């Protein structure tokens, strides 16, 4: 597998230096890196799946700092890569700046909206998936208190927390929801030690199920949950396998499908805004052999019902980003 990666890397580098690359797709990963076991890795898996199925090649780059965003996008656009997929909301500003300079190149941005004639914006209804895992958390909790650990305090992460709280309260109106953010700088995505301490602090307030949306900090969150007889809930990618028996479920965002579809469509990517929710399988609560013993039949029925009601519009899950407020939780 690693030889494959090196080959991909080598061909990508060759294509870049030759400047020929006849419309190979390209992908830019965010600062978490493509093996973050979460968001970026999911995007990488989608790209790899496309390459394996079609035998095609793609160019890729992992950023090391914020300053490289625009540079990376311009490099790919000038080398002729098409479409260019970028994983992460932080690309919104640089993409907005440069999209107009390359009218013939198609861009796909995940988790943010950029209005330009050659950009496809894909956002997820994370609040819907968070609602489902919130219900499961409240049903699994024996103490009647569940908690949430966010990474960097930004509206996108509050959206996870807000949906989670609403779901938990829907399953058990008496439930208490504790929410903490790790920090306000990008360092908050990579501070597992603080993640662990937050979980211990939440445990001492009575919580026994914790959901994280905190990138690398989440490694510490799930570890602390496993070490202290609590249940963790993973995010973005399926993290059930990380601590079998201690991860209740994962709120999965199918970033891989977005990348796969964009690569498959190639230059014919349709610009516009796509919003993926439960109805499109864009978000879901992960079920597999690692968590089947934790999930009761009662939970399954409840979330299946809720899924249907959300799709039908009978339950409306509040989107924090629509009005920057959360009725079920105060941050």
């Amino acid at each position, binding site marked *: 597998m690693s030889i494959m990666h090196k080959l991909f890397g080598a061909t990508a580098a060759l294509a870049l230096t030759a400047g020929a690359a006849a419309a190979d797709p390209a992908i830019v990963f965010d600062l978490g890196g493509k093996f973050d076991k979460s968001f970026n890795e999911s995007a990488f898996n989608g790209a790899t799946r496309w390459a394996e199925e079609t035998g095609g090649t793609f160019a890729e780059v992992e950023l090391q700092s914020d300053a490289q965003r625009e540079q990376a996008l311009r490099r790919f656009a000038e080398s002729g890569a098409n479409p260019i997929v970028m994983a992460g909301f932080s690309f919104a500003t640089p993409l907005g700046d440069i999209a107009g300079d390359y009218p013939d190149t198609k861009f796909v941005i995940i988790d943010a909206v950029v209005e330009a004639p050659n950009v496809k914006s894909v956002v997820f209804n994370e609040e819907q998936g968070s609602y489902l895992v919130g219900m499961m958390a409240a049903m699994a909790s024996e103490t009647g208190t569940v908690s949430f650990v966010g990474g960097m305090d930004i509206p996108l992460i509050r959206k996870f927390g807000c949906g989670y709280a609403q779901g938990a309260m829907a399953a058990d109106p008496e439930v208490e929801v504790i929410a903490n953010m790790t920090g306000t700088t990008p360092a908050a995505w990579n501070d597992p030690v603080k993640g662990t*301490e937050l979980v211990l602090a939440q445990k001492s307030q009575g919580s026994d199920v914790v959901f994280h949306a905190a990138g*690398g900090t989440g490694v510490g969150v799930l570890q602390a949950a496993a070490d202290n007889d609590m249940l963790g809930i993973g995010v973005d990618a399926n993290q059930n396998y990380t601590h079998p028996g201690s991860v209740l479920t994962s709120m999965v965002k199918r970033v891989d499908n977005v990348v796969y579809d964009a690569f498959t469509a190639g230059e014919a990517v349709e610009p516009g805004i796509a919003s993926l929710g439960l109805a499109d399988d864009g978000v879901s609560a992960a079920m597999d052999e690692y968590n089947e013993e934790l999930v009761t039949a009662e939970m399954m029925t409840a979330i299946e019902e809720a899924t249907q009601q959300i799709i039908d519009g009978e339950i409306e899950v509040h989107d924090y980003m629509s009005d920057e407020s959360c009725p079920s939780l105060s941050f």
Partner: protein
Amino acid sequence: MDLITLLQLLDSTLRLATPLLLACLAGLYSERAGIFDIGLEGKMLAAAFLSAGVAYVTGNVWLGLLAGIGASLLLSAIHGLASITFRGNQLISGVAINFLAAGLTVVIAQSWFAQGGRTPQLSGGARFNPVTLPGAEALRDVPVLGPIYYELISGHTIIVYLGLIVVPITAWVLFSTRFGLRLRAVGENPAAVDTAGVSVVGMRFAAVAICGVLCGIAGAYLATALQAGFTKDMSAGRGYIALAALIFAKWRPVYCLWACLLFGFLQAIALRSDLIERVLQFNIQSQLLDALPYILTVVILAGFVGRAVPPRAGGEPYVKER
């Protein structure tokens, strides 16, 4: 606030203060000998990585700890070579070490384990597990003292106790031994030490090496005791907070303990915003609490609470003849 909650808070304080304390004492040795070291962060990070990596491969956390100390010592040697032997700028060398560690750890971790710049999860003997002190279970039900002993004093990993023991040892070494006297003199007036026939370069290298060992333990504590593995940038600025604590403590070992406990307490209380609200009846932003260590240090540096005088020859390479 009841006793148990308070104990949980202090428990968390102790855990969070330990890496700060070890790094702070590391900086103390180095700076007392006249070598400023802002590379504490980088050394901790390198030690965190190598300790977790070796602990995973061998399954033995003690070998991991040794490897972590080794990694930190190597960076210390680079710092010593650049700033003592070649008389380079100590701050620049320190910054370079931080960058070197941040980059190298991820690259090597990726090439060894292919898990995205992290090490695999450690379990069992590859981690430092909490030790229950003798009699903790038996005394648990004794009112007041029982919970204090069981919750707060017992049940930490061995490194926490090690960190606490290093404080009196450091105070003794610095102020009651010939080595300590020379070490302090090298930081105040190296020419005088040289005249007395003691090698300034040797003393400074010794101090930098001790600094490396302590940073190595601090890094190993992060990756193998607090966490079960290395993740990139996991030191998350603790090396800088340790430096702030060192200034706050005015370069004295026992003050270092209090400064680190205070900063650890501020970090711990920031995690419990509900408690602040309950006790004070109003909410303090956790961001403010996170920033407090730095604010306090600036206050100290500005001379409001006594003067913090750094070692006089700090930051200056020693040149024998002028």
